[in-house]
């Protein structure tokens, strides 16, 4: 069963990390990911640029309105996500706990995947 683990955190804090601090967190997360890769559970994952780089298409207008910034102004922002192949919620939560130990603060939202397309770019 495919679950996504959505990574939420205060991006002001995360993007205030020094290069070294950022690298240290990434190294710890990579260690967790490597275990998942070996276990054949690791789907795609990605880290997003800050919400200042985001643009939102508001579909409530016709034609849709393009506005600067993220969809929702919240204290914590969606910073990235993982897709993991697990038996069920318990295992997905275990993985989220492991990730949390490597990168404290914020929250992981664990949500099952409804439709999944792997990378469909030519040559990818």
């Amino acid at each position: 069963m495919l679950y996504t683990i959505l990574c939420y955190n205060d991006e002001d804090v995360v993007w205030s990390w020094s290069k070294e601090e950022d690298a240290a967190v990434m190294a710890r997360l990579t260690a967790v990911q490597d275990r998942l890769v070996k276990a054949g559970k690791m789907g795609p994952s990605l880290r997003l640029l800050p919400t200042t780089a985001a643009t939102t298409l508001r579909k409530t207008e016709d034609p849709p309105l393009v506005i600067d910034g993220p969809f929702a102004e919240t204290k914590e922002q969606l910073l990235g996500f993982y897709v993991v192949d697990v038996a069920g919620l318990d295992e997905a939560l275990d993985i989220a706990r492991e990730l949390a130990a490597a990168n404290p603060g914020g929250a992981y939202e664990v949500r099952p995947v409804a439709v999944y397309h792997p990378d469909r770019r030519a040559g990818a």
Partner: protein
Amino acid sequence: MTDITWIRASVTAARPRAVGALLRYFRDLDTAEEAFQEACLRALKSWPQNGPPRDPTAWLILVGRNAALDGLRRQGKQEALPPDEVISDLDDAEVPMAERLDGSHYRDDVLRLLFICCHPELPDTQQIALALRIVSGLSVKQIARAFLVSEAAMEQRITRAKARIARADIPFETPGAADRAERLAAVAAMIYLVFNEGYSADDNSARAHLCEEAIRLARLLLRLFQTEPEIMGLTALLLLQHARAAARLDAEGEIVLIEDQDRGLWDGKLIAEGLALIDKAMRHRQPGPYQIQAAIAALHARAARPEDTDWAEIDALYAALERWQRSPVVTLNRAAAVAKLRGPAAALAMIEPLAERLAGYFYFFGAKGALLMQLGRANEARAAFDQAIALANTPAEAAHIRRHLDRLARENASVSR
């Protein structure tokens, strides 16, 4: 990440909003800074035990405000207390406080905090020092190291700057649209100064850190003013320039020109963010100097190899920039693109009229020498390079020019042989 590292990062991120809000309450910079300092000390004690608060910024503001009010009361400075409606609510309820603070005030609080550092009477160096101290929260020692002065000298510089802004009226009313735009422009210029101070550093890592600090301030400003194309442009410009940091100096600490840089050393993540922001900014069709400069930097970033650089577009962008900023430095930069497009003679003809206005400018003589060298006018090139060395700001700049002189000397030797 240890608790302490996490707390430090949270406190650093919260600082501009928290000090900005405390400044609004107390209308006094020193009180606001001390209140924040006290709140940080209490956070270091409380957060590891009780876990981090739901909203660290609101926590720091509330605790800092209460601590400062206690302090003021103890000193018997009753008359210094802010209006009743502010002090009537002293309960420790973090949630209502957070809700009251939510968003609406932060924008102008942070903008005000940044704006007081840009007082026109303050020389550039004092503006930068003040912003790093007040907004970024760097220690006097860190700032002194960046500017290569003693801690005592920097302490004095900051004290003097603070005295000057204390005499000036800090604007506390909520700014109107025109005032806000004016403040934003002043603050953007100040952030760019901070960046340039770091950018011109060669092997001084304390100073190079200023680039990262400037980017942090620009991102903060953009978070608060998400639809301002010039703030997108400024942030993009800083990101795209900083992306090349690792390639700008070689192993000996000497300057590597953009055409000779190892593009593999450019920071892809910073470039991606910069390109995304300039794309967003251009959609607004409200061009400005930061967006144009960022667009130029973006053309360099997009070229996989030096020969892929779109010099015609860069020339056109510099022409646009000249209309915004009538500065000989812009024309000098444009000449680099003209040299690629139409040859060194055309570029030389473009910069020669600038000689008088740029008589004290290192880059003018460096560029002039390089163009003369390409044209085979060795003696004139040597004279220009000699002047450049006399005006060099850093050892790396001087070393870069000396390499040109060595090359001229070698070529001269091989001709006379």
